[in-house]
C-alpha cells in the first residue's frame, strides 16, 4: 500500500501485525491441541473417559437390557460421544453415540476409525476389576465444529484489538500533529523575508531534525540576502563616482571652447567609460559569486588554453600602454570550473596590467610545481610596477580594499582600481582549494601573485 499518510500507514501496519500475531497464536494453539496423546484434544478425551469410568455405579452388568431409543431431533453430542460397556453390552451412552462399539477391539488406547462413513478419533479405557469399558470418541465433524467456533472467537478478539489499535493510532497522531498544523499557520502568516528561526514548542522530537535543517536553510538564505543587500549598497556606491566622472567629462566636451579642449575631454570620457565598464563587469562577477549558493562542480581541465584565451584579451590594453606580456605555460590539469577560472585569470592579469604602468613588463607563468609535498600547478602573475608593502599584502584580497596610493594616484594606473578584482581571485581560489602566495614581482620590484592549484 503506497500511501504517505502516517495514519493510513500505521493502520495498515497494525492490520498486518494483528494478522501475523493471530496466525502465530493460532499455529501454536493448533500444535498444542493436536499433539498426539499429550495434546489438549487427546488429554481431554482421556480425562473424560477416566471420569466416566470412575463415576459409574457398580452393578451395571445386571441392568436389564432395553431398547435403544431414536435420537430426538435437534439432539446431538457437541464435543464427544461416549459409551460404557459392561459384559459385552452398551449399558450407558451419550445421546447421539453410535450403536456399534467405537473401538470394537476393546483394547485400551487411542485409535482412528471409520464409523458410518465418518472418521472418528476414539479412546478406550477399561476397568478389568469391575468389568467396565468406557469408550470416548470425536467425529471429524465435531472437531471441525469446535475448531470453527474457536477460530471465530479468536478472530473476534483480534478484530477488537485491531479496532482499539487503530483508534489509538488515529488519536495519538492527531494530537501529535497539532503543533505541525500550528507551525504551518505560523509560516503562512509570516512576512516574505522574515528569516528568523522557527520555534516549535510541543513538536514531537522526531520532527526537530526537520525544523533544525529548515532553520539552517533559513540562516543560509539570510546570509545570501545579507550578501545581496551589501552588494547592492556597495555597487550603488562604487558606480556613482565613475558615472559622475563620465557626466563631468561629457559636459566639459560639450562646452569646450577649443578643438584641443574637446579632444582632451573626449579622451577622458573614453577612459572613464572603460573604467565604468570594467567596474560593472567586476560587480557582475561579484554578484554571480555571491549568488552561488552551492559549491561549483569542479572538473579536470587544462589551465594553459584558458590562459591563452584570457591573456589575449589584454593585447589592446597592453599595446596602448607599451607593455610587454610574457606568457609561458606547461601542460597540467587542475580541478576547476571554466567560468570561475576565467574570472580568476582575468582579474589577476588585469591587476598586473594596470599596476605595471606605462612600458612595464608582465609575466604570466603556469608550471608544474610541488608545495608542501603536494603536486600541482602554480599560476604566477608578476609585474614590475610599484608593488605592495609586505604588511599590506594580506589586505589586498579584501573586498573594496585599495592598496596605498591606489585610489588617488599621480597618473598612476592604480587610480582605476576598484578593490574588487583580487577579492574575487581570493574567493575563487578558495572554492578551488588553491592557495595564494604574494611575493615581490619582477626585478625585485612590483608584485607577484601565485595561485597554487593541487593537481587533478
Amino acid at each position, binding site marked *: 500500500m503506497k500511501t504517505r499518510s502516517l495514519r493510513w500507514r500505521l493502520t495498515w501496519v497494525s492490520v498486518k501485525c494483528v494478522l501475523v500475531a493471530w496466525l502465530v497464536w493460532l499455529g501454536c494453539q493448533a500444535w498444542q491441541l493436536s499433539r498426539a496423546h499429550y495434546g489438549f484434544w487427546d488429554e481431554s478425551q482421556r480425562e473424560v473417559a477416566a471420569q466416566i469410568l470412575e463415576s459409574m455405579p457398580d452393578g451395571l452388568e445386571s441392568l436389564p437390557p432395553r431398547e435403544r431409543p431414536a435420537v430426538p431431533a435437534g439432539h446431538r453430542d457437541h464435543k464427544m460421544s461416549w459409551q460404557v460397556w459392561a459384559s459385552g453390552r452398551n449399558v450407558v451412552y451419550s445421546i447421539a453415540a453410535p450403536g456399534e462399539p467405537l473401538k470394537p477391539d476393546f483394547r485400551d488406547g487411542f485409535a482412528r476409525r471409520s464409523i458410518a462413513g465418518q472418521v472418528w478419533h476414539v479412546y478406550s479405557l477399561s476397568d478389568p476389576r469391575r468389568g467396565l469399558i468406557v469408550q470416548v470418541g470425536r467425529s471429524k465433524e465435531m472437531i471441525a465444529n469446535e475448531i470453527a467456533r474457536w477460530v471465530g472467537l479468536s478472530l473476534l478478539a483480534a478484530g477488537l484489538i485491531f479496532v482499539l489499535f487503530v483508534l489509538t493510532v488515529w488519536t495519538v497522531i492527531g494530537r501529535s500533529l497539532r503543533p505541525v498544523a500550528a507551525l504551518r499557520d505560523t509560516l503562512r502568516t509570516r512576512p516574505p523575508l522574515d528569516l528568523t528561526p522557527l520555534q516549535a514548542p510541543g513538536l514531537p522530537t522526531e520532527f526537530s531534525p526537520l525544523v533544525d535543517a529548515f532553520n539552517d536553510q533559513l540562516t543560509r538564505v539570510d546570509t545570501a540576502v545579507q550578501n545581496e543587500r551589501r552588494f547592492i549598497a556597495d555597487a550603488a556606491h562604487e558606480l556613482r563616482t565613475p558615472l559622475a566622472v563620465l557626466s563631468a567629462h561629457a559636459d566639459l566636451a560639450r562646452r569646450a571652447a577649443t578643438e584641443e579642449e574637446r579632444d582632451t575631454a573626449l579622451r577622458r570620457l*573614453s577612459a572613464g567609460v572603460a573604467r565604468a565598464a570594467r567596474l560593472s563587469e567586476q560587480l557582475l562577477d561579484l554578484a554571480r559569486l555571491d549568488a552561488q549558493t552551492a559549491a561549483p562542480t569542479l572538473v579536470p581541465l587544462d589551465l594553459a588554453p584558458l590562459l591563452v584565451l584570457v591573456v589575449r584579451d589584454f593585447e589592446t590594453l597592453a599595446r596602448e600602454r607599451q607593455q610587454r606580456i*610574457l606568457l609561458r*605555460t606547461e601542460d597540467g590539469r587542475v580541478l576547476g570550473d571554466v567560468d570561475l577560472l*576565467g574570472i580568476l585569470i582575468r582579474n589577476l592579469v588585469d591587476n598586473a596590467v594596470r599596476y605595471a604602468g606605462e612600458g612595464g613588463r608582465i609575466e604570466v607563468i603556469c608550471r608544474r610545481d610541488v608545495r608542501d609535498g603536494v603536486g600541482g600547478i602554480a599560476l604566477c602573475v608578476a609585474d614590475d610596477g610599484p608593488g605592495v608593502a609586505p604588511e599590506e599584502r594580506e589586505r589586498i584580497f579584501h573586498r573594496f580594499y585599495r592598496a596605498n596610493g591606489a585610489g588617488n594616484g599621480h597618473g598612476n594606473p592604480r587610480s582605476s582600481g576598484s578593490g574588487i578584482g583580487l577579492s574575487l581571485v581570493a574567493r575563487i581560489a578558495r572554492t578551488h582549494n588553491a592557495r595564494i602566495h604574494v611575493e615581490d614581482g619582477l626585478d625585485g620590484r612590483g608584485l607577484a601573485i601565485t595561485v597554487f592549484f593541487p593537481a587533478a
Partner: protein
Amino acid sequence: MNLLLVEDDTMLAEALCAGLRAHGFRVDTAGDAALARTALVEHDFDAVLLDLGLPGSSGLSVLSYLRGRYDATPVIILTARDKLSDRIAGLDAGADDYIVKPFQPDELFARLRAVMRRTQGRVSPVLSCNGVVLDPARREVTRDGAAVPLSAHEFRTLLLLMERQGRVVTREQLEEAVYGSSGTIESNTIAVYVHQLRRKLGEQLIVTVHGQGYRISNGGAAA
C-alpha cells in the same frame, strides 16, 4: 569590404555602423537570427559580426547555420556574455574570433582586419597528410574519415602547417597566422595549440624542430 552586423541593440548597431563606415567598410545590419540567415543567403559578405544574445534564437544558431552550409565567411562574435565557457563554445562552433562587450571600437577594427587578412585571396584546395584531411572551404578536418572538431585557433595553426607541408614553420609565423601580428604578448601559445592538435590528431602528425619551429611529419613513418 562587405560586412554583416547582426546586433539587436539599435543604439549599438548604429554606433558600430557609423564607426565601420568611417573605416571604409560597407555594412548591412540584421536585428535577429532570421533576418541574419536571410541576409547570408542573399548576399556574399567578407565578414560577419555576430551578437550572441539575439531575441528569439541565439547567435550561435546563425553560426551553426552558416558553417552547416560550408560557408567559411569569417565570423567575429560580439557578446555581452563574458563567461569563458560561452567563448569556448563560440570558438568551437566555428567562430574566428570573439570580442566581449563592452569593447573599444579600435580593438574591433584591429581584429576585423586581422581576420580578413587571413582569409583574403586564399584559394582553398583540400589538404591532406597522413590520413588527416583539412578542407579550408568547409572548415572541416577529418582523421581517417572521422570528423575532428577543432577550435578556430587550432584550425588556423593546422592550416598553416599543412599548407607548408614538409617545411619548418616558425613560431612567429604561426602566431602571425593565428592572431595577426602581436608584439605585445610573447608566449608559448602555439605550443599549447600544437599540444591540443597532437592530442586530437595523434602525436606523430606534428614534429617539433628544436630552436626553429614545427612541421608536419612527412608521412613516411605513419601507416
